């Protein structure tokens, strides 16, 4: 179980095996419903990549998941489990919307956008602060407090949308639509670089912001003193304290960065797509972030790729449920669950088998052949 394995086995082969099993089980679920899994995959791939609008939608969804995936990943490095990305993103949406509602009448979008980014991040970070502080100072379990804060965020937002921000004389619990200046420009020109038409997809500037955030997180975790402290604290809190790292400071700062990333996610749906504050704006992306971070092994490049995969599943899943009505979009949630189960909870399941195989004869050729067969 604890045998040392080559790096590529631990970082490449075993995660790949886990993922393959997750998707095989997903295929079994499709067969249980009485549809052909291969055909289902074809529909998903066509829906996600077959035409310009589909690609743009895929990237639009991936943008959300990059932010929430980074949110969970940053906390992972400090050995913290931030399950509250959903609530932090929801409250981040409040920050973004308040900026837009306040300034959209007299400021241009390129001044509002940075303000909204800061407000979203600040609100998300603020929502993460209380659980972080309670964990660091009072020892309350951060998983439980962040779950509670998800529900508190939902209650608070329902209250605000129904009683405060709702437009008078309407029934819908949503704020007024922002003026032109409160909207992020779509990036049709970017799609045209690749000869694709964006169509009606809401792909907008926050996609680039997500990629910048990936780079930022990489710099932070592996190229700064703070990142080093975060990783040290995550690997061994006792040793970290012995080395002079303040655990309260690291816990609170890491969680606030994590919450800030979740808060920025709200930019995409609020300012980039709907142009108003609305119920359930995070739409479960906070939870998808857990799967994304696990799959991406908490590395920004891995997170971006995993987010793209989930973007494909979300957009392709819409196409799939259109072509095969028996398979509803809830299939995506099932796949999410299987990925979290096999890539996360059962990540050590194949390790003893693989370790035994490598202990017998470390012949990498045979190893590859076996991986192919599995």
């Amino acid at each position: 179980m604890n045998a040392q394995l080559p790096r590529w086995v631990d970082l490449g082969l075993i995660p790949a095996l886990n993922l393959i099993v997750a998707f095989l089980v997903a295929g079994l679920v499709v067969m249980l419903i009485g549809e052909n899994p291969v055909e289902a995959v074809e529909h998903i791939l066509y829906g996600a990549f077959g035409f310009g609008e589909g690609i743009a939608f895929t990237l639009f969804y991936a943008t959300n998941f990059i932010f929430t995936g980074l949110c969970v990943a940053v906390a992972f490095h400090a050995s913290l489990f931030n399950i509250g990305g959903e609530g932090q993103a929801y409250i981040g949406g409040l920050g973004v919307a308040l900026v837009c509602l306040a300034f959209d009448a007299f400021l241009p979008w390129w001044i509002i956008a940075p303000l909204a980014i800061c407000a979203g991040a600040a609100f998300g970070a603020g929502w993460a602060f209380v659980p972080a502080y309670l964990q660091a100072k009072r020892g309350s379990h951060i998983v439980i407090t962040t779950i509670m804060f998800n529900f508190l965020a939902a209650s608070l937002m329902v209250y605000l949308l129904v009683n405060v921000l709702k437009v008078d004389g309407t029934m819908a619990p949503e704020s007024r639509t922002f003026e032109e200046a409160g909207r992020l420009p779509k990036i049709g020109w970017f799609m045209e670089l690749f000869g694709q038409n964006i169509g009606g997809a809401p792909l907008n500037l926050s996609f680039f912001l997500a990629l910048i955030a990936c780079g930022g997180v990489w710099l932070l975790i592996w190229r700064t003193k703070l990142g080093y402290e975060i990783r040290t604290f995550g690997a061994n809190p006792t040793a970290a304290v012995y080395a002079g790292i303040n655990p309260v400071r690291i816990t609170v700062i890491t969680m606030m960065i994590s919450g800030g990333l979740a808060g920025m996610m709200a930019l995409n749906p609020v300012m980039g797509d709907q142009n108003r504050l609305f119920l359930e704006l995070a739409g479960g992306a906070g939870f998808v972030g857990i799967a994304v971070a696990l799959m991406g092994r908490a590395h920004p490049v891995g997170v971006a790729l995993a987010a793209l995969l989930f973007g494909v599943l979300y957009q392709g899943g819409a196409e799939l449920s259109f072509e095969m009505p028996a398979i509803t979009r809830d299939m995506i949630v099932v796949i999410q669950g299987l990925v979290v189960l096999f890539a996360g909870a059962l990540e050590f399941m194949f390790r003893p088998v693989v370790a035994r195989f490598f202990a017998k004869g470390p012949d990498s050729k045979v190893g590859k052949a076996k991986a192919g067969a599995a």
Partner: protein
Amino acid sequence: MFMDVILLLDSTVRLATPLLLTALAGLYAERSGVFDIGLEGKLLAAAFAAAATAAVTGSPWLGALSGMVVAIAFALVHGAACITFRGNQIVSGVAINFLAAGLTVLLGQSWFQQGGRTPPLIGEGRFGTITFPFAETVRDVPILGPIYSELLSGHYLLVYVAFLAAPFSWWVLYRTRFGLRLRAVGENPAAVDTAGISVAGLRYLAMVCAGVLCGLAGSYLAIAQSAGFVKDMSAGKGFIALAALIFSKWRPVQVMGTCLLFGFLDASAIRLQGKELPLIGEAPVQLIQALPYILTVVLLAGFIGKAIPPKAGGTPYVKER
């Protein structure tokens, strides 16, 4: 006025029942050292299985049975991940919640084509209520009459099961050999192992207990309280039950009290919807509904006593070390 109070308490009991069963399920799992944030998922999956089976067979008993079987199956997946494969218990719980949320609607739509619902149960397909003897005759007796005939009588069987399960769990945990071992394995598994008792075996057994109770809770939701399954019908009850479990500091009798309190908050929020209250104006329904979460956070922060979880909770047991 008196009748209002009785009706409020009556719905408190009804709303507390699924919380109580689910929280007791969590009690067994967490007291054995397995954190279980997958209660919500097990509850939902059981509700779906119970409603689907009852709809197809027409028997609520078979429905409840299949609810339990499915909840046990989910609990064993969680157990395999946490006990045998030493995975992260939180991650596994998250996976269980996703799987239940997705599979219930997906399979429901594919089997019944009603947008993820199960066909509505009619007549015998659903659990009926139990009326105590003489409930009708004593109804007009002042004070005691309404208490007997409204508050105590006329509930579903599972309500009585739930409120008996709490003292029974107390007896199991504190007065039986199994209970002593279960508590020990959650505090100090190495000691249990040294005594020659299987740590993994005990934890799996605890997961089965959790499955049975979640199965009953799900059955209550889908084939007693309502007449069928609707998408996401557990609506966070699994998490409120988890909050109740923590709020009671992992003790069975206190769990019953907390669940009644949370049920009462829920019942009063429903009743106060849109009503004007003296001094505070319109009833802050969202605030009342959020109170269980706020109370739990305040408790966790150590401002009302201190909630100390089972010591070995969250860590897989490794024999050699």
